[in-house]
Structure formats: structure tokens, C-alpha cells
């Protein structure tokens, strides 16, 4: 078992508190989507229902297109593991308005809590990972401001880093394994995309 003590829902709610027209949020599929939606469904959230591995490059394209807005990508360890090299693509562009927060419970939550590579090695026959450190990978890819958050006392700074610290920012947050309610946003991708663009004041084609 992971010895994490942070609860994902509460800290996501704090990261998104008072979200206004300046904050553009991409949420990865599965738990991160439900976390962000529980904090409050809003047009400037783009919660994904599929497309594993997409949130970081999607956040990058958005951050470059909207350099005056803050772009916050919230996703899980399984999703991040599927697109590790996109962190190098982010580092090459150095978007100062992009933050990536990975909620790491060391599990593939949607498929039955199998261990991801971020789980410790030698953790028993069915629960062992590789001890992969995503913050170190982000730093190694060239995102200098990469760090790990484990304690409740660090959450206030995490919120600040997610919302305002000069990007690119990468935060790995070790969170508990919890069984939580599914809180679902609309599923229609075209609707989610259209309401997002409309909220930004972009005219339909």
C-alpha cells in the first residue's frame, strides 16, 4: 500500500477554487475527469472521456494558442505514463502559462486498481511497479520547475504553483487510493469543445 495521505478531491477543489475566465483546464480521462467535475463543471473545463495520453500535448497546443490565459492540465499517473515524452515537447517550447499536475495514486483506477509503474518495486506479486518517479522524468525532460507534493502543509503552495507560478510547472502529487463517487461531466466531445471555444469568445466557423 502507498503511504500517501493526500485526498485528491479536496486538493483539486482547492486548485480550482474561484476559477474564472483566465483559467483553462484540461482533465485526463478517468479519476482526474471526475475530480475536476466534482469541483464544478464549467465551460472552460475540457474533461476527457478517452484519448489516454492526450492531456499534456493538448494543454501545450492550448497554452500556445492562448498565451494570456493560464492552462492547467490535471491528470493521473497512468495517463502521464502513456505520454512521458510529451514532457520533452513541452520543455522545448517553455510555455510560461502551462502547469501540469499529476495525481499519482500508483494505480490504474478505472480498470480495477492494478499497480502502475510509479508503485514501489517488491510490493508483492500483484502490486509491484517500478518505482518510477514522474517528477524526476519531467525534470530530466527539461522542465526545471518540477517537484513532488506529499503533505497537507504543501497544498497551499501547490495551489499557487498550479494557478500562477511561471511555467512550465510540473507537480507530482502523491494521493491516497480511494473509492470515490463518479461525478460525470457531459460526454459529447463536440459540445465540450464548442462550449469551451464559445466561453473564450471564439466565433463558430
Amino acid at each position, binding site marked *: 500500500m502507498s503511504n500517501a495521505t493526500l485526498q485528491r478531491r479536496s486538493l483539486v477543489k482547492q486548485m480550482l477554487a474561484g476559477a474564472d475566465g483566465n483559467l483553462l483546464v484540461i482533465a485526463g480521462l478517468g479519476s482526474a475527469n471526475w475530480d475536476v467535475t466534482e469541483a464544478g463543471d464549467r465551460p472552460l473545463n*475540457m474533461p476527457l472521456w478517452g484519448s489516454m495520453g492526450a492531456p499534456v500535448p493538448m494543454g501545450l497546443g492550448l497554452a*500556445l494558442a492562448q498565451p494570456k490565459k493560464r492552462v492547467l492540465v490535471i491528470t493521473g499517473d497512468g495517463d502521464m505514463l502513456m505520454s512521458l515524452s510529451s514532457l520533452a515537447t513541452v520543455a*522545448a517550447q517553455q510555455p510560461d502559462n502551462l502547469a501540469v499536475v499529476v495525481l499519482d495514486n500508483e494505480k490504474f483506477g478505472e480498470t480495477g486498481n492494478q499497480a502502475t509503474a510509479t508503485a514501489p518495486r517488491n510490493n508483492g506479486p500483484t502490486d509491484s511497479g517500478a518505482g518510477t518517479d514522474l517528477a524526476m522524468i519531467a525534470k530530466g525532460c527539461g522542465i526545471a520547475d518540477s517537484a513532488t507534493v506529499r503533505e497537507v502543509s504543501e497544498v497551499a503552495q501547490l495551489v499557487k504553483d498550479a494557478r500562477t507560478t511561471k511555467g512550465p510547472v510540473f507537480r507530482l502529487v502523491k494521493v491516497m487510493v480511494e473509492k470515490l463517487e463518479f461525478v460525470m461531466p457531459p460526454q459529447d466531445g463536440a459540445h465540450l469543445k464548442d462550449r469551451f471555444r464559445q466561453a473564450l469568445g471564439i466565433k463558430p466557423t
Partner: protein
Amino acid sequence: MNVELKSAEWKDQIFDVFQDHDIKQVFHVPDAGHSRLIELCQKSNSIRTLALTTEEEGIPLAAGAWLGGQRSVLLMQSSGVGNTINLMGMPKTLRFPFLTLITMRGDYGEFNSWQYPMGQATPKVLEAMGVLVYSVDKPEEVKATVDAAARSAFNGGQSVAVLLRQKLLGIKNFGKK
């Protein structure tokens, strides 16, 4: 007109089409066939050029750019198409315009047997994912084809791929005759 000059000409024309269609982000992997076009984009003040680690990143990047109000293009080789297939569903699910220009390998006189499986499958897998496939093998048709593809994408809201055939690009032979 010698072949080299002609080749430079159609590559410059693709860049002109990008400008005409207000392309703001261009995603690419290193590619001999696209290298002149990539350099033109890198030198441009109006286009942001991103080098990718894998072609797959190009689809969510295009989605993010479109969410933020910008048009983009993905440049890749036929061998990279296979890396994009699952995420090629995004333009359909989110219903956003998507344009990609693909330099073909394993297509016409290819010497490298490793290029054939993906090269030959490229149009089929693109079509299977609902991408419109345009194909061009004559230098004088490049500009009009890329322009039509951009119209189908950005005016017509479609996913469109332009295959730049090996007949157009010239056969890569690594010095072998």
C-alpha cells in the same frame, strides 16, 4: 527546369498555402521530405513550429490549438501514421478540423523493405479512421491539392490527409543505384 528547383518550388508553395489559410502552429518530426518546408515555418514570424517526440502528439496538439482558436498542421511520414491511429479519433469525437501532410515511404520504388507494411497500409488505415485522403504525385498539382485539403479541413470541418507520393518526392536510395 531542373528537378531540384522544381522541388524547392512546390515546397515553397505549400508554405504559401499555410499562410493563406492562417496556419499558426505546425507540428513535425524530423523528415527529409518536409525539411525545406519545416525550415520555412521555423523562420516564419507568424507560425509556431513544434518538433515532436512522436507523431501521436500532433493530434491532441491540434485539438488544443483549435480549442484556443488556432489552426494547425501535422507534418509526418507514412511510417508515423501508425503511431497516430487511436488519437486520430479525436477530430471525429470533438468534431474539429484536422490537416496532415504525409511524405510517403514504401510506396514507389522504395529500396527499404521495412518501409512497405506501413507505407502500403497508410491510405487504408487513414480511411478506416474517417480521414479524407488526397494524393499528389505531380509537382504542378501540389499547391492546388494542399489548398483544397485546407479548405475541406478548415471550411468543411473534416479530417484530411494529403499523401505526397514517392513519385513526387524522388526515390531515396542511400547512394545505391
